[in-house]
């Protein structure tokens, strides 16, 4: 190889390089689309589960919404507070600490407690059973037991007990609400982790009917309401409800007084 070919090579590549880079830099100016660099940073901080709990199509969509000010970091129920505050920092927002929510299954109607109504022979999902005949168990309000909530959980935080009742792992639960959506009977609700007293029943049938389908149904006897002097429990439409606003921190828990044991303490006081 002689000097001239090296020379030609350098010249050629130089010219080519110059022509194309000039073209590109002009094009990049003419055709540039402004993209907020914060979006990628925020995507990195979001959990990336694309669970949709924030109401957007996924973490990337959420990031865009955050940058455009349509959403707040707190709308993501899944991300940990550290990342949320980092996102807030990027956005220049103050983030308010919010209490973690977890899912609670408001039913105790497993196969021991709930009566069996009939043999169900259709598609083995709660929703399908709910829409056709109501599934094999007798209570029209309670758990069907085919585990739609379990399949819906993106965090593996809900499992089926031996007797066919979903159990929430309160540590793993992020409060994304997928199970709440999945349950056709609406027996799963999100509650702040500091709440421990629950009426684990959703049956609004008359007491006779309720008792006939499930051992642990609320029979709206009103003992809980009387025991707390109306400050804590109220029976509305055949069902006792906890009034969390009025509920004092150290209540006289009527758990032992409830004749069907449907008032229960869930979780350990003090957990976060």
């Amino acid at each position: 190889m002689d000097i001239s070919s090296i020379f030609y090579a350098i010249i050629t590549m130089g010219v080519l390089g110059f022509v194309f880079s000039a073209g590109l830099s002009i094009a990049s100016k003419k055709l540039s689309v402004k993209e907020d660099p914060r979006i990628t940073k925020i995507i990195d901080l979001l959990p990336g589960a694309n669970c949709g709990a924030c109401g957007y199509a996924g973490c990337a969509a959420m990031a865009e919404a955050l940058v455009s000010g349509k959403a707040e970091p707190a709308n993501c129920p899944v991300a940990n507070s550290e990342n949320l505050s980092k996102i807030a920092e990027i956005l220049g927002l103050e983030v308010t600490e919010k209490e973690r929510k977890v899912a609670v299954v408001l039913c105790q109607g497993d196969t021991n407690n709930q009566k069996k109504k009939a043999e169900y022979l259709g598609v083995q999902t709660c929703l399908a059973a709910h829409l056709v005949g109501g599934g094999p168990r007798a209570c029209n309000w309670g758990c069907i037991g085919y585990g739609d909530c379990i399949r819906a959980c993106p965090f593996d935080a809900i499992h089926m007990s031996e007797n066919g009742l979903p159990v929430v792992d309160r540590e793993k639960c992020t409060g994304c609400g997928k199970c709440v959506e999945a349950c056709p009977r609406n027996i799963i609700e999100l509650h702040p982790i500091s709440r421990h007293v629950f009426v684990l029943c959703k049956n609004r049938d008359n007491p006779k009917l309720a008792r006939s389908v499930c051992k642990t149904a609320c029979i709206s006897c009103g003992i809980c309401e009387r025991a707390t002097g109306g400050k804590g429990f109220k029976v509305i439409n055949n069902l006792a409800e906890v009034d969390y606003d009025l509920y004092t921190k150290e209540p006289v828990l009527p758990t032992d007084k409830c004749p069907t044991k449907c008032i229960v303490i869930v979780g350990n006081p003090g957990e976060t």
Partner: protein
Amino acid sequence: MKVLTFRKGIHPKEFKELTEHKPIEKLPTPKEVFIPLQQHIGSPAKAVVQKGEEVKAGQIIGESTGFISSYIHASINGKVKTIDTFLHPLGLSTQTVHITSSEEANPLVTDSDTKSWESLSKEDIISIIEKSGIVGLGGATFPTHVKLKPPKDKPIDTFILNGCECEPYLTADHRMMLDFTDKVVQGVLIITRTLGVKKAYIGIENNKPDAIEKMSKATSKIPEIEVVALKTKYPQGAEKMLIKAVLDRTVPAGGLPMDVGVVVNNVGTALAIYEAVVENKPLIERVVTVTGNGIKEPKNLLIPIGTKLKDVIDYCGGLTGDNIKVIMGGPMMGITIGSLEVPVIKGTSGILCLKDGKNFAETVYPCIGCGSCTRVCPMNLLPTKLARLSEKGMWEMANKMGILNCIECGSCAYVCPSHIPLVQHIKVGKFMVNQLKK
């Protein structure tokens, strides 16, 4: 006579011989009835009687609460025991009026009250129909008075009486046409008059030659009514198929019969309208076919609304075995009942008891793409595709493929060699698509 029909569909074995020659029998007044306040499409009625109140058969006990709603009447003489939630055949328990029968007999409003209807105005007739709590008795239970008041921008030119009764086993409509021929024809006249249409057709499947003959004879002197014979094919009685067969008009996807200027009513509804307008008798009882190999004596019964299934089945000699599937409605679209305590409601066209419940659990194979379902779907859908999309939770795609157009006739699942519960999957899909639309 030319035999008309629609495209696709199936022809299941009929089993109508069990009851088609048995005249309608009246069920003795039951000891108690449970009358749900929700027996129709639309908002539930509001109770207007108190606990402990004495009521008479035909008395209004529930008032309509909206444009699409209906009145509810006591079906026996007696006393209101409770008004509380009770089992409902469609699943969730609902507010139900529990009436216990009084000792005295139950004289219903009799024919002596018969009055001529020709003098009544259109509005009066519609008002009587509304007050009588008449809803579509074919099973859809859509309030009839709403159907008879179509919006102004949808001119109606034709009325079709649906006498197909394409569901296997059921013979209630068939018997009504034979046993109450004139009343049904009068009912049709009332409807045509109210709608102000020139032409009415009575569509009857040609597996009921006796009904065709009798109805033709009864209408031979009435020029605006024409009886047409239809091919025996399921789901001939579905509104859209019926309109296609009789008039060769296609109801647009997602539309209603009134979009093509047609109103369709069931034979039972026409009879109820006649009884309400002429005999002053609200909808407190209906003809139900109690049939199937699971029941001792299949019958066509006139049953007060609210009678418990158990009472009806006992009257028919009880069930024949242990593994029984009890279906409310026909075998193609009826729903299984988990408890015999549920009451007969306005939409109950049949009580079908089938033996050997265990055998219903057929092995489900994967879809082998045979295309049978596509060949029979009267709506031209791809049932297996929709079912798979629904199973996998791909609602948007399912919506795009027209899942909401499914009329749930069950033809696809009937022919499916893989025994896939296609209709149930599609029902789930429709439910979810509707949910997401909200």
